[in-house]
């Protein structure tokens, strides 16, 4: 068995079946590197979307916004509403957005508006921070608000938050599907490559068979060939993948806001090696199963 992996110089590349002489090896390597690259992209999609939804929702998840329309804003009402809200169990903070906050919020649309400020009818906005999102707390907040300030509207962000999460999770599912598809395509292509090489080298295989070579002896030749080609392909794929990731993070660092920041933890970095390796394992398994299946047709 150890001989399979030690390549003695006298045996050239050491295949009993001249696999290394067949054209199409480069194509196989190219295809596997492409598949490895795509699998990295798909995995990045899965992990990255997770980060993005977390970033989007973490600010909103535990907060509720209450708006009192401009026409009805009275300082007393705002103060008693704040008092009322703070009494509810589960409410950690209730704050009115001050003038500075509002200016910051509006400036992108209205420019520097301090001078206009006095004349504009500005609604009062209250941000309520809750310990956790559950129906009991949100309904208590709604009831209290209606009692004290009937004209106020409570925005729990529920609707669009859940839409956003649905979208993100849908995209993650698509990424997962793409990932599985990549695995499947790779396995199919490798199985086809092994099958055609076995057909081309039928006479050599038959000879080994007559000499008493076991199925595993013959299969190992193909497994080793596919292992070498996949490792080559996967390495290229990882290189291209890392270059792409590097480029993306460079873009997002230089143009904050255009792309969500993608900072990856150590475990996630190792995922980007593990995923293509999984692809290589998949290829080797496909080669092995195919070779064994073809050999079983021999006497």
């Amino acid at each position, binding site marked *: 068995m150890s001989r399979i992996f030690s390549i003695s110089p006298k*045996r*050239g590349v050491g295949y009993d079946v001249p696999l290394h002489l067949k054209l199409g090896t480069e194509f196989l390597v190219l295809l596997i590197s492409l598949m490895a690259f795509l699998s990295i992209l798909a995995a990045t999609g899965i992990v990255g979307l997770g980060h993005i939804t977390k970033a989007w929702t973490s600010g909103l998840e535990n907060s509720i916004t209450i708006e009192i329309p401009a026409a009805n804003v009275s300082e007393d009402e705002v103060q008693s509403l704040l008092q009322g809200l703070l009494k509810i169990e589960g409410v950690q903070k209730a704050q009115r957005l001050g003038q500075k906050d509002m200016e910051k919020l509006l400036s992108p649309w209205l420019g520097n508006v301090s001078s206009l400020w006095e004349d504009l009818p500005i609604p009062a906005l209250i941000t309520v921070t809750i310990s956790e999102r559950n129906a009991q707390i949100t309904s208590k907040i709604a009831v209290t608000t209606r009692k004290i300030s009937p004209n106020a509207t409570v925005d729990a962000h529920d609707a669009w938050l859940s839409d956003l999460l649905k979208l993100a999770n849908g995209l993650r599912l698509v990424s997962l599907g793409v990932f599985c598809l990549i695995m499947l395509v790779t396995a199919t292509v490798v199985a086809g490559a092994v099958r055609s090489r076995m057909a081309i080298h039928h006479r050599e295989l038959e000879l080994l068979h007559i000499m008493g070579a076991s199925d595993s002896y013959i299969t190992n030749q193909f497994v080793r060939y596919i292992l070498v080609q996949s490792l080559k392909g996967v390495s290229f794929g990882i290189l291209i993948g890392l270059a792409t990731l590097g480029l993306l993070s460079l873009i997002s660092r230089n143009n904050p806001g255009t792309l969500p920041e993608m900072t990856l933890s150590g475990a996630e970095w190792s995922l980007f090696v593990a995923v293509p390796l999984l692809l290589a394992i998949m290829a080797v398994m496909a080669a092995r199963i195919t070779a064994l299946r073809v050999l079983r047709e021999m*006497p």
Partner: protein
Amino acid sequence: MIKFEHVGLRYGIGPEVLSDITFTLTSGSFHFLCGPSGAGKTSLMSLLYLGRRPTRGTIQAFGQNTNLLSRTDLAALRQNIGVIFQDFRLLPHMSAFDNVALPLRINGMNEKKTKAHVEELLDWVGLGDCMHRLPPTMSGGQQQRIAVARAVIANPKLLLADEPTGNLDDEIGMKLMGLFEQLNKMGTTIVIATHSLQILDSLPHSRLILENGQLHIFNPSTSSTTIKENVDV
């Protein structure tokens, strides 16, 4: 050692190439297999080296009924059989050395021992100087010696040769027969398919004669022809 009982062989839906063949090869015997071209010599050989399963009948090999053996067990039995093919079937991308080493590697011998064995045998057949050349660059006679070396390297119990002298001149052919005689004296069971009268006449071994799918056995030393059934040769 090998026992055929009512063995028949057909290819696909064609006629039976071999029908109802019954004979026994005892250990250490030497046989010629003869018959006109197309009589089924190569087909019978392929049954002997367990390269095919018969379409009917049973083949006992080394004391085991091959019909009942798994593919793994059959592979192990084949390691006891050396074959010299009519067209040699050397692997053209491998050096003479690697071609001859193949059976030992398949049997799982370590590389150091393999090297020693192969070099010794190649020296013995007179190819010590060109063991790293590829077969297509060598003459027909040299290729045949590689084929012979490959067939005998693993010290097989049964050696089969399919028309080994077919495309060689008589002198080399007779030398080869001398080699087979020597191996036979050391205990190897030998079956040689041939239609060379020169060889047949010069050696007294019993003949398995194929004709119309039937096997007849002729023993020159007793000069009697017996028809198949239960003949222990």
